[in-house]
């Protein structure tokens, strides 16, 4: 199946297959000359290799060095790695990253799903409202983090107007037990619009006939949502979830600006720990070891992304080639 598709879609590969099998088609020579040479891809691949792949290899090398940020890194053996294994803060920061990931997913998915499905519907004010929903997408992470820092400030922010009963003077960013929830809240505010867009466009593609049939069968709205909408959106749920996982793993600037890992170490997630170890503590070797951990996690996720989502038909075509 995959090879058929690729032969159909990519005359190039078909041409090679055929000539290899010794039955060249009449038009093949012209087509072969017509194929772009590999050189067209060389600049992009070379550039990516230089500024993305090479750093990935270098960071592994650096994790075996002592480097304070100046001069040449000196190889120091596996010291960083044995330290990493024993460092309780590494485990703690990874657990915080995990907590952030799970919480973000559990909060964002239902909200984005419900609003996305609603926004795909025909309500009269939907178009206006939904274009407003998406405004947070336009704000940079720095802008969002600074805005919410001001909003959540116990002395000047909106929370000070809450009556005592509701927790007036609540300080979510300064309270070690609340800070992670505050971070999740801000991330939700920032990213739900994007996932809502995904669900909206997917929900628009569900055939209306399914709902018509269900209505004739007497299915209620809830039933229709559970038996038609949700199953039809399952691939979007997967795509959106994976993007959320990747996003949570790479969350960095929001937390840096909003809490700087604090109070104490309450929100010091793994990327932030890596950053502060390197660029504030000048222990670049050790920070590199933490970075390798993140890299491995990211690479695993990358594989999941290319295999399990809409990108899969890309990789299956490659396999068929």
């Amino acid at each position, binding site marked *: 199946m995959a090879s058929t598709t690729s032969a159909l879609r990519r005359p190039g590969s078909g041409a090679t297959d055929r000539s290899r099998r010794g039955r060249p088609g009449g038009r093949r020579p012209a087509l072969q000359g017509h194929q772009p040479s590999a050189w067209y891809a060389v600049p992009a691949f070379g550039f990516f290799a230089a500024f993305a792949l090479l750093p990935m290899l270098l960071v592994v090398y650096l994790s075996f060095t002592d480097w304070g940020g100046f001069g040449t890194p000196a190889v120091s053996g596996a010291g960083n790695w044995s330290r990493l294994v024993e460092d309780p803060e590494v485990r703690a920061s990874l657990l915080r990253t995990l907590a952030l990931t799970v919480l973000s997913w559990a909060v964002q998915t239902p909200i984005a799903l419900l609003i996305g499905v609603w926004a795909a519907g025909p309500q009269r004010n939907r178009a206006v409202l939904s274009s407003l929903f998406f405004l947070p997408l336009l704000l940079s992470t720095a802008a969002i983090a*600074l805005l919410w820092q001001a909003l959540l400030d116990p002395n000047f922010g909106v929370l000070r*107007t809450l009556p005592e009963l509701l927790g007036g003077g609540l300080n979510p960013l300064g309270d070690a037990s609340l800070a992670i929830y505050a971070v999740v809240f801000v991330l939700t505010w920032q990213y739900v619009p994007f996932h809502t867009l995904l669900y909206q466009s997917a929900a628009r593609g569900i055939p209306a006939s399914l709902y018509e049939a269900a209505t004739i069968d007497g299915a209620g709205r809830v039933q229709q949502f559970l038996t038609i909408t949700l199953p039809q959106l399952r691939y979007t749920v997967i795509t959106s979830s994976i993007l959320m996982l990747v996003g949570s793993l790479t969350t*960095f600037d929001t937390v840096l600006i909003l809490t700087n890992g604090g109070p104490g170490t309450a929100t010091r997630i793994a990327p932030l720990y890596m950053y502060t170890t390197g660029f504030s503590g000048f222990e670049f070797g050790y920070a590199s070891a933490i970075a390798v951990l993140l890299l491995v996690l990211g690479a695993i996720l*990358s594989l999941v992304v290319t295999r399990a989502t809409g990108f899969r038909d890309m990789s299956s075509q*490659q396999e068929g080639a």
Partner: protein
Amino acid sequence: MTVPNVGMPPAATAAVGDAPRRRRRVTRQRPNVVAGLFAALWFLLVAVPLYYLVSSSLRRRSDYLAESPLSIPDAPTLENYRTVLEGGFGRYLFNNIVVTGGTVALVVALALPAAYAVARSASPFVQRGFSMLLIGLAIPAQATIIPVYLMITQLRLYDTLLAIILPTAAFALPVATLVLTNSLRDVPRELYEAQAVDGAGPFRVLVSLVLPLARPAVVTVSVFTALTAWNGFLFPLVLTQSQSTRVLTLGLWNFQGQFGTNVPGLLAAVTLSVLPIFAVYLLGRRFLLGGLTAGFGK
């Protein structure tokens, strides 16, 4: 919980056929009240902070502390905006435009020929290279920031705008190439063949066939890349240092330190930073929203 009540309006989602007439009728009978309330709640959650952002930026510092945060400013003033504009904002904006423009140009110039090769060539080098590129889809940029810092220093590019552009473009390349490749794969091969019969070489095909056909995808890729570059934070943070190379996001963060408790000033800076992209949004909402979910909206 109200959640289970938020069902799909029957027949609400079709874009084809005779659905519109029926859709309207069904909706008139059963407005989806619960879903509407839920959406209204989210609307408030978005609108209130944005209102707070703009209204607070118009307050005097003293009023900011005295007035209720969500009230309309008693004596609105543009003083904060003046402070911000005099505090180097123009420079940050200019740098942001250079970084964004440079990144988009570089990404499109590299990704389009690459996508053409990936979509049309059987070369194993190209196909393996493409798989390699896809690894970059979920690589956290932070994980490579230390070696990138080392490389940029060694290249003597530290504290230049090019230092931001190069890695930003490298990490934007995978998505860009993927989106462009997908769009080129949808082009019927007969079109390529017709060009070949006419004797066009690959380069002419690229210019006279691929480029026009891929234009929507190029717009998408440009929007996506532009937003990434415009909002970039980590690379500027680590790879630049001086006032003259500072970009907007970093400038905002810097204002926070500079202004201390001058929250209205900070909020004015945040508002100013949003305005350019908001203007773009008003001009090309369709492109922007489409571009944001490019390649993911399956």
